């Protein structure tokens, strides 16, 4: 197909060293929009308060109440988690929504037979998009084939046979799926690749870094040291909420620790912690704590996100009351959320779409050969 050919050519040219010139599309529209927006922005920005303007009243107010009301010496933290806590509350759940979106979009193909009616609806669509596939069950039905499943075993002899066939095919597919994607198969393959392409056995500077699971011993040692420093920094930033810092940068640094260790040491090193069944509960517990902090203010101090925790003396770790609790929760939320999102994207496989016919002919069809005739529409069937 044309686009891949063009990409291939571009890649070849890039390898050869000549610059790849990408065409500019819709230049007139682009320049008109850009210049119009630029004019509006410049006009507006020139009217903004400059560096000599007095501070707005709201900023002065936030500075004034930081010490007396919140016992905290860092007004930015006080605003983020205290005065404008509701804003941060919404932001937390925006981040959570994004994480859920990413992990939903990035998930592997899964079989869904549990939801009522979904399978029947899917069968109808499948028959339209891929007649070959459903040929086994179509003749047995009288007219509307989707009634077979709903009716149970009251049909003629053809029905159970087709169901058996269907189940056999399904089992076959599952086996095939496990061979390629299963834990044993992939780790076995990884083991052999690991032996062949360890970066320690290659001379420095040789080209094959993408094959090795971990980086060289120099990088590994440095990463181990840096990860400790980074993790301590993350916790320090959050714990000392009376100094600049807070849960957001702390959480980002914590996600950086996971990513650094993954990049340097491979997934094995972080596998015990960086996995959905560990991170997702932590993320959800964090979200529940945020809701609890917000609602607690409503019950015990009159308004959502009002401080209802005891205020410790100024310049101690717990000095902010609710501010510090919220900040620590954000450390968990942002740290786990970013890690889930990043690793979900890293683990994305191309299993929502069937391979193109030409691809399948090369890789020999076997049980999957009957799908070779499928058109683009059968993508819906694979994903469902």
């Amino acid at each position, binding site marked *: 197909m044309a686009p891949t050919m063009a990409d291939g050519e571009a890649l070849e040219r890039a390898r050869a060293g000549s610059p790849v010139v990408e065409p500019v599309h819709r230049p007139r529209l682009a320049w008109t929009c850009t210049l119009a927006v630029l004019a509006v922005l410049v006009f507006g920005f020139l009217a903004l308060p400059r560096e000599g303007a007095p501070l707005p009243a709201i900023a002065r107010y936030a500075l004034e109440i930081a010490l007396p009301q919140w016992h905290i010496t860092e007004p930015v933290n006080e605003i983020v988690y205290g005065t404008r806590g509701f804003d941060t509350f919404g932001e937390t759940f925006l981040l959570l929504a994004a994480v859920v979106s990413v992990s939903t979009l990035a998930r592997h193909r899964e079989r869904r037979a549990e939801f009522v009616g979904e399978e029947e609806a899917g069968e109808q669509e499948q028959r339209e998009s891929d007649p070959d596939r459903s040929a086994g069950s179509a003749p047995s039905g009288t007219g509307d084939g989707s009634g077979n499943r709903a009716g149970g075993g009251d049909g003629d002899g053809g029905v159970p046979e087709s169901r058996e066939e269907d189940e056999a095919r399904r089992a076959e597919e599952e086996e095939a799926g496990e061979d390629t994607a299963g834990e044993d198969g992939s780790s076995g393959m990884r083991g052999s690749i690991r032996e062949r392409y360890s970066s320690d056995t290659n001379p420095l500077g040789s080209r094959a870094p993408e094959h090795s699971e971990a980086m060289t011993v120099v990088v590994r040692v440095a990463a181990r040291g840096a990860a400790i420093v980074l993790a301590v920094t993350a916790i320090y930033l959050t714990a000392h909420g009376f100094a600049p810092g807070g849960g957001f940068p702390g959480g980002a640094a914590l996600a950086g620790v996971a990513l650094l260790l993954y990049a340097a040491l491979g997934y094995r090193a972080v596998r015990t912690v960086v996995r959905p069944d560990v991170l997702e509960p932590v993320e959800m517990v964090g979200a529940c704590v945020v809701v609890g902090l917000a609602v607690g203010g409503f019950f015990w101090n009159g308004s959502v996100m009002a401080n209802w925790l005891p205020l410790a003396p100024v310049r101690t770790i717990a000095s902010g009351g609710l501010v510090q609790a919220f900040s620590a929760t954000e450390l968990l939320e942002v740290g786990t959320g970013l890690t889930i999102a990043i690793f979900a994207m890293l683990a994305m496989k191309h299993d*929502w779409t069937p391979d193109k016919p030409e691809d399948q002919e090369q890789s020999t069809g076997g049980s999957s050969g009957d799908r070779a005739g499928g058109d683009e529409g059968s993508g819906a069937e694979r994903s469902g």
Partner: protein
Amino acid sequence: MIVANYLAAALMFCIGLHTAISRRNLIKIVMGLSLMEASTYLLLVSMAYRRGSTAPVLLSPPDGATPQDLVHGNVADPVLQNFCLTAIVIGVAVTAVFLTVAVRVTQHRRSLDADDSRELRG
């Protein structure tokens, strides 16, 4: 001359906008959108700046000053810094979703070109 920062933010926003409109490579479109997000960080932090101001931290006031002096003294605007912090987190979240969609579209179409995805056209 904080106006220079304002103009740089406007220019950065427009570079991102131009990229998002005139390119068809999905990654470049996402990069353009990220650039537009980043320009708001520059604008917000620049708007928080005051000439000769200190950071809005009441932690260790200079000799002879109390935290209350700092409160009424010349400090940068903490509220806008808070907005910037919020914007960064939202920017990260939105970019992650964009990139995931871009990867899925690319896997489905075998192409990064937005012009190959025409179902929503018209």
